[in-house]
Each structure stands twice: as structure tokens, then as C-alpha cells.
């Protein structure tokens, strides 16, 4: 079926990339090696899920990177020093996301621009909170992110958990179905008597929630924060959703695919530094891998559906 097929390619590209890593560097095939390879996978996966929530309702979020940076700054300062205030700030930022979703729908604003504006706002707030790099991760987050489960590293366990949870939430639950319906045919949902404003606010709130988790987990790994810590996440998260078989319009997304897409991107990053590739070329190689995977996907999808003009 269509849906299963969608998930096959991300899995395949991750597998190929992993095989390449193990071939070049057999020592990576160990608990320690995997831990190193997927070091930053969890925050990227969470940011990708956040982006997916927005793409699900046919919008795009250009502020994910600065939002995650902002959350990281809050986590490394307020959440560490005054947990209650910190939690309140994070809750308020999720509410802000929900309000944004409602505003975008009610006034029919282009999400790409509103989130672009918000990226300035989050960046400004982050600079105000943490003008120079620093802060400290709350101990419990640090412990949680560095826990060493038996057999499989934390990053992989957590990724599987995130994938399973969001799959249940988005693909199986009735609310998730409705949210995807907004992406698929907004008019039909509206005509059936639902408040699309509320649904969009809900999708944005979910994005805010996963963005918060992403920032918190990032600080747990890096132990300190700065206002520019996650700027790359905007582009990485979009790429992750697309690599995972998602499409920009029509509510066609896959949470499991998105997590796998994020893992692929994280792996590509680690793989390149692993290979001792000249640092000059690391970014470029990431781009090349992205293009390669999408090219392969094209070959596959051409074979599966020959119609289309």
C-alpha cells in the first residue's frame, strides 16, 4: 500500500548509510560507536517531529531553529535556577505557538512569513536571556540524556520511543486523524462542523511541545546553551520530514519516517566527522547525501506510479 511504501525508503536510506559506516569503520558497530554516531539524534528527531506537526496542516515553520535555541537558553538558566518560573516560561511558549496557529488560520496569514517573523522574536528572547554562551543543564535532564540502557544506546531507545508515541498520536488516534484531515482537505473538515482554528492551534501547540522537548534534550547533551545553539535545526527539521517521506502539502506525513529521516541526518553528520573528511567538505557532503537520497526516492516512486503528467 501507499502508506507502507512511504516508510520503506527512509528505512532503506538509513540502512544503506549505516552499512556504509560499518563497512568503513567496523568499530562503529558497538555500543560506544553507535552512541557516538547518534549522539545528537534525539534533539534533531524531536525538532523534526515539531516541524512535521506544522507541515501536517500545510504550513511550514521557519522558526524551529531559533525556538529550540530559545528553549535551550531557558532550560540552561531559568529551568535550572528557578524550575517553576522556567516551566511557566516554557508552558507560555507552547501557548504562544497555539496562538500563532489560531492567528494564522483566522487571518489567513502565510505561515512561512509569520514563523519567519517569530524566528526573530525567539532569537531576540534568547539573546535577552543568555547574552553570552553559558548556563547549566538541570541535573535531572543531564541524567536522563546520559543514561546507559543495556544493549542499545539511549539515543536509539529514545528515538524508537518518540517514533512510537507520535505514531500513536498522529496516525492512530482519532484526533490525529482529524489533524491530518485538515492538511488533506480543510474545507471538508470545516464543513463537517469542526473548528479549524482550534485544530490548527492544536497542531501548532504540539509543534511547540516537541520543540520544547528538543531544546531541553539538547541542553541535556551539551550541558550549556547559547542563543545560536540550534539555528541549523530549521533546515535540518524540514529536510528530516521530507527525507522521511513527508510532503509539503496535503497532510501526507509519517512520524516514523520523520524520526528515521532525522536519524539519517544525524548519522550523516557523525559519519562525516567519523571519516575524517576535511572539515571544509562536511557541510557539502551533507548536502550531497540529501540530494542522493532524494534522487533514489525519485527512482523508486517513478517505478511505483507511472501515471502523472
Amino acid at each position, binding site marked *: *500500500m*501507499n*502508506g507502507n511504501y512511504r516508510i520503506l525508503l527512509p528505512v532503506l536510506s538509513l540502512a544503506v548509510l549505516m552499512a556504509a559506516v560499518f563497512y568503513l569503520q567496523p568499530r562503529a558497530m558497538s555500543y560506544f560507536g553507535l552512541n557516538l554516531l547518534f549522539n545528537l539524534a534525539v534533539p534533531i528527531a524531536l525538532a523534526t517531529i515539531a516541524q512535521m506537526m506544522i507541515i501536517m496542516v500545510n504550513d511550514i515553520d521557519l522558526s524551529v531553529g531559533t525556538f529550540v535555541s530559545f528553549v535551550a537558553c531557558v532550560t540552561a538558566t531559568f529551568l535550572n535556577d528557578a524550575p517553576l518560573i522556567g516551566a511557566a516560561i516554557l508552558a507560555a511558549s507552547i501557548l504562544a505557538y497555539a496562538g500563532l496557529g489560531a492567528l494564522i488560520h483566522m487571518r489567513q496569514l502565510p505561515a512561512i512569513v509569520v514563523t519567519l517573523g517569530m524566528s526573530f522574536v525567539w532569537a531576540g528572547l534568547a539573546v535577552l536571556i543568555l547574552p553570552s554562551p553559558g548556563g547549566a543543564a538541570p541535573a535531572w535532564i543531564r541524567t536522563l540524556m546520559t543514561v546507559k540502557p543495556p544493549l542499545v544506546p539511549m539515543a536509539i531507545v529514545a528515538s524508537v520511543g518518540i517514533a512510537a508515541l507520535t505514531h500513536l498520536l498522529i496516525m*492512530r488516534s*482519532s*484526533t490525529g*486523524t*482529524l489533524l*491530518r*484531515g485538515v*492538511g*488533506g*482537505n480543510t*474545507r*471538508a*473538515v470545516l*464543513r*463537517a*462542523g*469542526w473548528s479549524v482554528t482550534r485544530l490548527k492551534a492544536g497542531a501548532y501547540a504540539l509543534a511547540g511541545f516537541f520543540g520544547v522537548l528538543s531544546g531541553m534534550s539538547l541542553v541535556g547533551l551539551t550541558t550549556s546553551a547559547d542563543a545560536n545553539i540550534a539555528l541549523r535545526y530549521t533546515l535540518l527539521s524540514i529536510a528530516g520530514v521530507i527525507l522521511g517521506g513527508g510532503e509539503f502539502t*496535503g*497532510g*501526507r506525513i509519517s512520524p516514523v519516517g520523520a524520526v528515521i529521516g532525522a536519524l539519517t541526518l544525524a548519522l550523516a553528520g557523525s559519519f562525516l566527522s567519523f571519516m575524517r573528511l576535511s572539515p571544509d567538505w562536511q557541510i557539502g557532503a551533507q548536502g550531497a547525501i540529501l540530494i542522493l537520497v532524494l534522487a533514489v526516492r525519485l527512482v523508486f516512486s517513478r517505478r511505483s506510479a507511472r501515471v502523472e*503528467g
Partner: protein
Amino acid sequence: MQPPAPGGHAPENPLVSLVDAHMHFGAVRALDGVSLTISPGECLGLIGHNGAGKSTAVNVINGGLTPTGGAVEYTLPDGSRATGAAARAAGIRSVFQELSLCPNLTVEENLRIPQHDLWGPGWRRIARKRIAKALDEVFPGHRIKPGMTVGGLTLAERQMVEIATGFAEATEPARLVILDEPTSSLDASIAHQLLDYVRGFCARGGAVIFISHMLGEVFEVATRIDVMKDGRITQSRPVAEFTQQGLIDAMGHVASVEATTAIREDAATRIGEEVLRTDEGLSARRGEIVGLAGLAGHGQAEALARFFMGRSSGPRHSSHPDVVFVAGDRARDGVMPLWSILRNLTLTHLPALTRRSIVDRAAEKVLGADWKRRIGIRTDDILNPILSLSGGNQQKVLFARSLASSAPIVVMDDPMRGVDVGTKREAYDMIRFEASAGRTFLWYSTETEEICQCDRVFVFRNGRISAELTGDQINEENILAASFEMQESTA
């Protein structure tokens, strides 16, 4: 699916009644005092031309629009009467003309959209059961599985799912189902399954409003027919009191038999040498009007698109087009929604109005004014936005866009879809005029009446040409015969 209990309501208690409903959009009077009632057990055939007000009436009944004047009253399942936003509680369902499914969801997931009670653990199982049951009952022998993604279904299958959703069991059982052009994508046998089901549904005490261009279907299924014209109901009688011809007259339809013969009369002098021949067997001669017929969705539109794309690529095409295209699906294939009428009209011919890359806007205006007069676009200013025009007038602009060019071949993809009779007749005249001036037309149409005006007809079946008809062979019987599978053995 639980049919509503017959006898639950006294006959004098209609499910819905509209009393002198008015609906004005600015200066447009979409409804101009409509009164109608639907009672359990009734199947109301609602007919009229495009723009007669059928869709507006339906939207007022299902609560989508609040009338600017008059009243709508519903009878709730418990027998009490209600006004206002009570359509859903009263068990009124609508199956719309344009598809209202979410293509990214599966069949069962789509049921979640209209049925608000589907939530919590096990909702998916209930949804699957309900939609499967409805599909089995309405369309026995269908091959749709509840787990299939709607985007992967054919157009006909999607329409079947939509209809089944309308009749599916829910906490508020369906008591009145509004079917707006439900059979437009269905072939005859599937359409018959639906008609049979509707009859049964009404016999069990349900009510249906059936809107269709296919008068035969309306006669077959309706118990009463209301004719709408200019926002009013002009006639409302039991079906037995109408004849097909009477109905057509009531709608203001004029049979265009004279036009048919007139077009073909001059064929001998008009038609010249062969100008096109495709691999699949389509061919046409200069000045010839070639029809593409057959059931909807059997490859005609694709054949036209392939031919057009093949002949219109290459750098020289824009300035010297060989083929031009008249879209039927205006929103998808034709109209530029942000532009004025003029800009829409001149798009194809623009290279000829351009000197050194700069558009000669004076020449453009002259061309626009010329075509406005020639085809009678009803607007006071050609610089008005295209969307200010009615559908029929927008279609005229699309005709003008193509005919203004010098291209010798014109491809038309069911261009009269949703166009009123007056415009149609004007378009026929235009086609005839252009053909006698030497243009070749490839004309895909879903209406037999139009196909019968062609010089030669290719009937499509399953993506292939199943018959080529010429001259007197072109009639409804032969076209139908070639459209259906049963002719396979003798062919």
C-alpha cells in the same frame, strides 16, 4: 444502517421545511423566495440549470448557509421542531458535487471527519464496520477496502465512498440525504445500484433530495420533482405528472436539433486534408470537428492531454502555437484567478502582441474589446477581475483565449461542463464558424448531444479507441454500444 423508523412522524410533520427563503449575495439573488418541504419516505428530484439556485437551496437546507430572509425548520428525531443550526441533529447529510474527502486519509479514517462521535479506544474498528456496511449495502460487489488510502482510489470509487458516508450508520442516523450530482463519475451499472438503494431507503422511511443533470435518473428515482429557475421553484409536482420533454421545457431548455444538422451540412466543403494522426489511432482533417466520446474517465482527457503536450513543447511553440487547449475544469486548467478578464483572454495570443519582449498594451486592449463583442462576454469593463464573471462567461473567455491565437488545431476538454444553455448555443456557433474557417477541433464531451454535432467520433473504452463513427453512424445508440463492454463478443 438503520433506516429511520417509519411512522415515527406524522406525514404532516416534514423533516425540513423552507418557508419563503431568500438568499442574496450582494446584488445576486441566489434564492428569491423558495418554499419547499421534504417528508419521510419522499425522494425529491431537484432540477434546473446551473445558477438556478439548486446548490444554494441545498446549502440552506443543510445549514451551510443562513438565509437572508425566510425560515428553515427541522423536525428532530424526537419529534420536536427546531430552527437554526439543527441540521446535523436532525440527521441531514449532504454528498457534495465537488469531492469532500481527504485524499491523504484512508476510507475508514475519512468517516471520522463527519462523524464527531468516533473517538476513544476502538474508534477505528467502529468506523471500519460502519463504512464497510454502508458500502456493501449501497454498492454490492464493490472492491473498496476500508484501509485503502482515498488518494489511491479512482474517481468513481471516491464518489462511491462519499455516497456511502452519506448513508452510513451513526449516532444520528441519516434521515435526509442530499445527493448533488452523485452519479457524475459513476458508470451506468454502479449508478443503478445507487438508484436502487435510494428507492429502498425511501421505502424504509428515509428521505432523499436528488440533484442530477441526468433526467432519466431523476425520473427513475424521484417521487416528486421540483424545477428551479432564477432562484425560484417554478413547478413542483409528483413525478408521474411530468414527461421528459415537459421537464426540459419547464427548465427553459431548447432542443438543438436544427444546430446539429446545420453543422454537418457543410461538412463536405469544409473538410480538407489530414492534419493529425496519433499512435493510438486518433486522426483529424483540416476543418473537421472530431468528437471523443465514451464513459467519463475512459482515457479521453488523457489522450487529449498527451496529444497537446506532445505538440506544444519546443521553443517555437509559444510564438507559433500549433495546438491550443480549451479547458473544461476551469479552476484547475484554465482561469488565472488574480487577473482581469483581458489578461486572461490574451494569454495564449500574447507573443503575437509583443515587440522586443514588451507587451503592446494598446494592441492587447483592441484584441480584448474585439473578442468581448464577438463572443458577448457579459461585463461592463473588460478590466474587471475574471472571477467577477459567472462560470459560463469565464468559459467564453477561455474559448476566446484559444481562438484568438492562430493555431490550426483546437483541443477541447469537455468545455461545456457546468455551462448554461445559452452560452452553449453561442459556443456551438463559434465552433462551427471557426471550423468553416479551416480550424480543426478535437472535442471531448460527456454529453451525447454535443458529440452528435461532430463530423467524426472516436469512442473510448478502457483507455483505448473502441470505435470510430462517421456521418449518420453518429447517434446515441452507437456511441453507447461502443462505450459498454457487452459489445466485446461481437466486435
